[in-house]
Each structure stands twice: as structure tokens, then as C-alpha cells.
């Protein structure tokens, strides 16, 4: 008897089950994203109330975060400084995210952007340090750009070759390559530094030309342009089509006559090359120096090699959408930094926790893009009865 009852239970419809949906409509994806952000805002509000022991109001916190990212409204000087600063970092984050996109679309999990950026930056730095004054300025700039692209591409091709020919796990391979690149940069940093307390900036003659009073204006222009070029490359070219076919199914691609090995290696070369370019430009135009990995923030990458993975994924591989996601991340990063300056309760860690909460909400919310919850009939009936009652009353 008891056994029969149990059997009956097992056959009963589950309380809630999950059904996969097709491609989400634009309306739905906007609604889901907005819902995720709203949930994040609610949780963060509660968090700010707890951290600030009720003394920090949500509005004040938000306005502080705004000031920290875009400057104090009305104060032109503060706005100019903050906006330029936000723009360059957002552009850098955008560039790395754009670089990762073709690889990710191919389902090649390149989490080695950090290393590819570092090695590109190092290649440029070597030219700036050792060959300063040995060639004309335009020639110098061309060489600096070329070497960083080549270095990044090589760093990307190595794991790609092993993936293509031996099926080596690319996630773990590229992850390890990050640290190898960083240690190589440490080597040059310590060698050049010698007995000094910190590495001085490179010879001014080798710096990238400045524009509009900022040394890194060209970086912003190039990085944003890359986002549009990549959008076109993925949507409108044969290469882009091959990438998305491989991403959907490598077997289908092979059957359709696509040379999968070649595409994997070519795409990773592009991915690595753009990362390398980002590193090279950062060193040549923004930092004019390289960084030591034991410091709290690696100034060549700012840890964006990892953050970019999240950005690329959150933007659903839409390189233009990444502009907004990069700005959102920068708003969180710089905003929570500003909160820390204004309120002592809000330490560095507290800011990271808040970024984590927002990311979890968006990551978790993406579930509702692709899946739908279906409740069992009993629950449905309750809703149906309620709406019927409501309808009757209205009538």
C-alpha cells in the first residue's frame, strides 16, 4: 500500500519544471535585463543599508557613485577629469571584451586575455626601452604597434594549435599562460628597475602622440572603433559565419567543409592580436611604463582580462552592447571606490562584494532568457480561478 502511494507520488507532475525556449525576443531580453538590474538594485540597497548601519541613504549612495564615475554635476572640472578617466578604462575593458568575442562565439574559452594583454604590452615596452632614438618617430610607432600585435597573436595561437590538433583543454591552458606572461613581465620590470625603488617612465620621445590634451585619446578612438569593426566582421563576413557555425556545432562545420583547425587558429590569432594591441597601446599611450605582478593592481591590465570575460558574456557577444556593459562595470568599480572615499564603513572589499552581487543577479537572470518555468496544474488552477474571479467582479 505504502509502496503504491510512493509510486503514485513519483508519477505526479512536479510542482515546477523548466522548459527551454527558442531565441528570446528583443522585448523579452530587455525585460529580463531590466528585471535583473532591478533585483540587483534592491539587494544592493539592502546591503548599503546594512553596511552603513542605516546612516547612508540609498539616494546619497547612488549620487556618490555617479559623482565618482561621471563627476559632480555642474562642476565642469570634476566632470571633465572623471569622464576622461572613465572613458579610457571603459574603452580598455571594451577592447578586451571585443577581442574575446570571436573566440567565445566559437565556444573557445579564451580566459587568457590577461596574459595576451601583458605580453603585447611587454613587446611594445621592449621597443620603447631598448630602441628609443634608434629610428625616426613614425617608424618607431609602426614598429611598436606591429610587435604588440604579433606578440599577442603568438600568445593566443599557442593554445589554439594544441586545441586544434590535440584537443588540449583551452580554458586551463590559457589560464596558465596568463601567469607565465606576467612573470616574464616581472623579469623585465626588475631588470630595468635595477636598484631604483620603482621603474621610471620610458623616454618621452617614444610616447604615443597625444590628442585633445590627453595622451590616451587615440586609445579610446581605436578601442571603440574596434568594437564596430568586430561587429561587422562577425555579422557580415564569411569568417564570422564560419565562427558561428563552429560555435553551434563543430561536426556540422566539418561536414559543411569548413576547415575547423584553420578557423580555430585564425580566430585565436585575431583574439590574441587585439588583446596584444590593447596592451601595447596602454603601455605606449597611457602608462608609459610596465607593471609588477605583486602589486595590488596590475596597471597594464587592471585585471580586465578576467572582467572582460564577464562583459562579453553579459552582452551576449554583441560587441556594440558591450559599450554599455563596460560603462556599467566602470560605474560599479569607480562608484564603489568613491563610496569608500566618502564613507569609511565602505572599504575596498565592500565595493567588490557589491560588484559580485550585481554580476550574480545578471548571470542568474539570464536563465529567464532561455528557459521558462512551468508550474504544475494545481498551481495553474489557483491562478486561473483567481483571474476568473477578478474577471467576474470587473464585469
Amino acid at each position, binding site marked *: 500500500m505504502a509502496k503504491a502511494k510512493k509510486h503514485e507520488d513519483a508519477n505526479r507532475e512536479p510542482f515546477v519544471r523548466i522548459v527551454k525556449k527558442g531565441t528570446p525576443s528583443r522585448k523579452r531580453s530587455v525585460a529580463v535585463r531590466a528585471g535583473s538590474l532591478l533585483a540587483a538594485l534592491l539587494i544592493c540597497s539592502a546591503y548599503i543599508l546594512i553596511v552603513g548601519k542605516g546612516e547612508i541613504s540609498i539616494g546619497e549612495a547612488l549620487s556618490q557613485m555617479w559623482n565618482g564615475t561621471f563627476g559632480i554635476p555642474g562642476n565642469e572640472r570634476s566632470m571633465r577629469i572623471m569622464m576622461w578617466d572613465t572613458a579610457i578604462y571603459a574603452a580598455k575593458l571594451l577592447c578586451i571584451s571585443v577581442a574575446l568575442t570571436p573566440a567565445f562565439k566559437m565556444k573557445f*574559452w579564451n*580566459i587568457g586575455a590577461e596574459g595576451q594583454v601583458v605580453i603585447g604590452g611587454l613587446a611594445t615596452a621592449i621597443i620603447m626601452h631598448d630602441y628609443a632614438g634608434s629610428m625616426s618617430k613614425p617608424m618607431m610607432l609602426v614598429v611598436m604597434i606591429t610587435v604588440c600585435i604579433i606578440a599577442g597573436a603568438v600568445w593566443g595561437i599557442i593554445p589554439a594549435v594544441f586545441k586544434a590538433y590535440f584537443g588540449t*583543454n583551452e580554458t586551463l591552458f590559457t589560464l596558465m599562460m596568463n601567469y*607565465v606572461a606576467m612573470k616574464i613581465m616581472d623579469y623585465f620590470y626588475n631588470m630595468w628597475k635595477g636598484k631604483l625603488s620603482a621603474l621610471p617612465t620610458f623616454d618621452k620621445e617614444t610616447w604615443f602622440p597625444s590628442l585633445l590634451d590627453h595622451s590616451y585619446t587615440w586609445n579610446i578612438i581605436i578601442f571603440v572603433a574596434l568594437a564596430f569593426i568586430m561587429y561587422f566582421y562577425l555579422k557580415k563576413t564569411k569568417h564570422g559565419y564560419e565562427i558561428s557555425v563552429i560555435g553551434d556545432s563543430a561536426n556540422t562545420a566539418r561536414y559543411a567543409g569548413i576547415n575547423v583547425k584553420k578557423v580555430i587558429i585564425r580566430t585565436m590569432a585575431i583574439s590574441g592580436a587585439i588583446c596584444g594591441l590593447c596592451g601595447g597601446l596602454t603601455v605606449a599611450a597611457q602608462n608609459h611604463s610596465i607593471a609588477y605582478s605583486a602589486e595590488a593592481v596590475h596597471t597594464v591590465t587592471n585585471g580586465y582580462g578576467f572582467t572582460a570575460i564577464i562583459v562579453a558574456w553579459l552582452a551576449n557577444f554583441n560587441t556594440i552592447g558591450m559599450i554599455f556593459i563596460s560603462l556599467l562595470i566602470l560605474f560599479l568599480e569607480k562608484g564603489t571606490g568613491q563610496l569608500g572615499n566618502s564613507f569609511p564603513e565602505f572599504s575596498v572589499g565592500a565595493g*567588490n562584494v557589491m560588484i*559580485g552581487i550585481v554580476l*550574480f543577479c545578471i548571470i*542568474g537572470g539570464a536563465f529567464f532568457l532561455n528557459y521558462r518555468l512551468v508550474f504544475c496544474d494545481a498551481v495553474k488552477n489557483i491562478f486561473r480561478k483567481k483571474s476568473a474571479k477578478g474577471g467576474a467582479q470587473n464585469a
Partner: protein
Amino acid sequence: MLSTVLSWIVRAILFGAVIMYGSLGETLTEKSGNMNLGTPGIMCIGGAFGFGCTYLYEMNIENPNPVLTIAIALFCAFFFSALAGMLFCFLTTTLRANQNVTGLAMTIFGTGLAKFFGTFIIPEGVVTVKATYANSLFCKTIPLDFGESTAAQIAEAFLCSHGFMLYLAIIIAVVMAFFLKKTKAGLNLRAVGENPATADAAGINVSKYKYLATSIGAGIAGLGGAYYILDYNYGGWSTGAAGGLQALGWLAVALVIFAVWRPINLIWGSFIFGLCYWLYNYIVVFGIKMTSAQSSLLEAVPYLVTIIVLIISSVHKKKENQPPSALGLAYFREER
């Protein structure tokens, strides 16, 4: 000369034991097909809460009980890390989010939470706080003296110059190896990691195994965090300690590959990683003098060795040396 080698061995074993916890947890997690790149963050959480709770206990009690001090540290580290593991599993298994993305977000979150929790404990204007009593308990070595001969001293360095956490790590490794190879639940777990669809068809509750393996795995990794703070870092907590712990967490992920997903290999693998890590400090043993710049190249050795192991195991294609084949993939029953 001998004393230098001995101190190298002792330091290598201590360092290895810390990352071994991270790797043990990650091995168990990856066996279920979940790749938790949040391990560095989770180790930070373990370190912060394990240290924090035992520190509060020791500060507020007149005569702290040794057993209770250790129990509080280990329990809190395990519990809060396991919670973080559960959150990871909820996002990746139930909500089917991408594991790499979730893991990296977990690293940001975990490191932040650790630093944030630390600021509650550290009084204003102080950089480091120390849990002196807990540290003395974690550092307590076995009081055995083997004698003065070279062999005896080496044996001493290997066997009894360490706190109890080293032996606990070895026990966990052996138990985990037995569990994975010899028990039915272990077989089920491996089936989930290799091919969840087949496991599901065989009547195994895939989600349950993923949740349990990921949570317990995260808990074990968290123990390593507490061990790092209370022994390796001489019982001191500072915001910088969280940064050091995070760097170590990535090595733990590397070690899992180095050991080709086998808990027993972790025991000697962690020792080799420890030797590699400290190589830059003890390279004089081989009669080589290095500048500080050159020694930073040596720090890349553990990562290079891991890459070589990864390549060799994929070129050889030996079945027993491969990562779990469903590693990193979300499973959805209605999808083929």
C-alpha cells in the same frame, strides 16, 4: 647547506599543503563536471571566516579551549565556503549559467567579502591582527627527535615538522581517492562528471550529486584558506593576506591539472609545487647565483610545468588521464 635544504623542504611541504586543500576541493568539484574558477575567492572566504570566528572566540574568552578553538576555525571556514559553493552551484546547475563567468564573478565576490569581513575585525588604524593562540595550536608539531644524522634530520623535516593540518590533508586525499574509486556514490559522481545524460538515464540524481560535490569541495578549499591564515601567515590577517591567498588559489586550480584529477597524486604534486614555488629563494643550493629579476622567471615554473602536463596528457590521449568529459558544461535533460 643541509639546513638550507631542510628549511626548503619544510617550507615546500607547508606551502604545498595549503594549495592541496584548494586542489582537493576543486578535484571533487570537477569530478561532478563543475569547473569552479571561483576557488581563489572561496579560499579567501574560508580564510576570512575561519580566522575571524576563531579570533573573536579567543579575544572574548578568558581561557580558550584548544579543541574548541580549532573546531570553530575549521567549522566556520568549511561552512561559509560551502555556502559560497552552493551559490555557485545554484547559478550553474539550477539556473544553468556559464561556469567560467560565474566562477570569475565568484572570485571577485569572494575576495571582496573576505576583505570586507576582515575590516569588521581589524580595529581602526591597525594593519594586521593576529590570532596568537590559534596560531600556536595550528603550528604545533609532533615532538619527536630522530637524532643528529642526516637521514634522521631529513626524515624529521618530512614527517614531523608540521601542524596537524598537513596530516588531515593527506587523510582527506586518501579518503577521497577511496571514495571515488571504490564506492558506489563515487562511481555515480564520476558518471555525472563524464556523461550526465547517461547518469540521468541510469537513475542518478544529477543535480544532487553536483550540489553535494560542489558544496563539499568548496568547503574543503575553504579549510585551506583558514590553514593559510592561521599557520602559513603566522595567524595574522590583513587586507594584503587576502590578495596573497587569491594568487595561491590559482595555483590550486593548476595543481588539479598537474595531478590529472587524482587525489593521491595531489600529495606529491603539492610538494613539487611547493619546491618550485620556493625555488627562487633556495636556488643557491645548486650553486647558482641569481639576480632578483631572474628569480621572478623561476616563479613561472609551476605554471609551465602544468602546461606541459596538460599538453602531454592530451597528446597521449590515455583515457584515465583526461579531464571529466562533461567538465564546464551545463546539463539540461530536455536538450540533446
